[in-house]
């Protein structure tokens, strides 16, 4: 514990860095997967192509993706952008399946009623389909958020893993306390992100207090 007080500045700086490097992929991945998920829920062909493509990316282990991306993007190998892009792709892969489930969970009868009431395509999406898909989207986003925060620490091996630095540094110094503190702060950050999402859900989806069926991602998730 004394190590934590002596190095509080470092730990807080790494926590902030971790929050940014994990936060961007979560937000961008979520935003990007909404239109793709909507498209995939409507067209069988689009669903096949998108799910297959993202499943291939998702299957590639994180460290391999971190290393291959510089060759594809033309970035330096230690550029944090590689990590952000890789985590965004993983977030999209996880979220896409969730979004297809979420949009598919909206009853066809409800959509037909909305059309009969005179909603246009876009109006129906924003005011009927998206809010009704909200609870399932949120459940999946929570899985994406927690997985992304814990996965980021692997990026310490390519120099930008936020709190993951404490793991590589602690290993080089054979110092258990530093590693334990890294784990504790990573878990705490994941809990904070989760609390923010739950709170956002309460505010944005006040009608969705009923229990949501376990999202499919519960069986999947991603650790490395």
């Amino acid at each position, binding site marked *: 514990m004394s190590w934590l007080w002596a190095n509080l500045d470092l730990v807080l700086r790494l926590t902030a860095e971790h929050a940014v490097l994990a936060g961007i992929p979560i937000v961008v991945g979520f935003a990007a997967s909404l239109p793709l998920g909507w498209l995939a829920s409507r067209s069988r062909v689009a669903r096949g192509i998108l799910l297959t493509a993202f499943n291939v990316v998702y299957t590639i282990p994180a*460290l391999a993706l971190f290393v291959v991306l510089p060759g594809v993007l033309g970035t330096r190998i230690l550029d944090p952008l590689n990590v952000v892009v890789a985590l965004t792709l993983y977030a999209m892969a996880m979220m896409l399946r969730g979004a297809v489930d979420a949009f*598919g969970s909206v009853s066809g009868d409800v959509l037909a009623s909305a059309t009969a009431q005179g909603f246009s395509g876009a109006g129906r999406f924003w005011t009927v389909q998206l809010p009704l898909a909200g609870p399932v989207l949120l459940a999946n986003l929570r899985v994406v958020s927690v997985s992304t*925060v814990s996965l980021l620490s692997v990026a310490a*091996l390519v120099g930008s893993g936020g709190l993951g630095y404490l793991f590589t540094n602690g290993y080089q110094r054979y110092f258990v306390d530093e590693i334990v503190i890294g784990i504790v702060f990573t878990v705490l950050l994941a809990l904070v992100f989760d609390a923010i999402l739950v709170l956002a859900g309460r505010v944005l989806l006040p009608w969705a207090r009923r229990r949501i*069926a376990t999202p499919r991602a*519960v*069986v*999947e998730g991603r650790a490395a």
Partner: protein
Amino acid sequence: MSFFLDAFAFILDPANWAGDVGIGARLARHLALTGVSVLLAAVVAVPLGLLIGHTGRGRAAVIGITGAARALPTFGVLILFVLLGIQFGQGLSEGPVIAVLVILAIPPLLAGAYAGVEAVDDVTVDAARAQGMTEWQLLTRVELPLALPLLAGGLRSATLQVVATATIAAYVAQGGLGRYLIEGIQTRDYVRAVIGAILVALLALLLDGILAVVQRLVTPRGVSRGATRTTGTTARRPSRSSGATRAPVTEG
């Protein structure tokens, strides 16, 4: 792009496959680590998951365990175990690494087994009981076959996690294809890192492909027909724990 050509040239040269630190030995080690860990995890997780799915007890525990496991940074836990192993005199042995891989593989297998049994329709379970099946027959002849697709999904997910984590384990242990990545990064030899990345990615894709075929093969015909019809509506499947119709049968 020349990195990739150089990396492929290295991989395709048979001379690089031989020897103690050749591709062949490292691939074998990676597969052995993965196989042992997933097998050990399955021995623990599958019976437990089936039991939880069958009895409906411990549902909250499964969800809690899978959620908590997801929040733990695997990389940190891996290093923690290896350091503790060294402190308790194990040296740089494989034990702590396998322990972490097993712990990591348990949640997806547990969730797959449990979710598979839970997804079996209440009506089917009641029909099996009405036919006079014992609980054991119900589990082994009805619930298990119907649970196989989701169980295989859990196996697929667990294998994927373990292959990926065995890769980063090369940072703290010998062997495995991850060594190329770690060596490449540490010596700033980008081609070597890309060699590792390509090999690890191919291994993961190959194993995932094989397990996807297995998943399809173990799916009972009726289930797959039903699944294509209800694609995207899994969230609406009634939860078994709410099946009030089932309670009197159990008590009677």
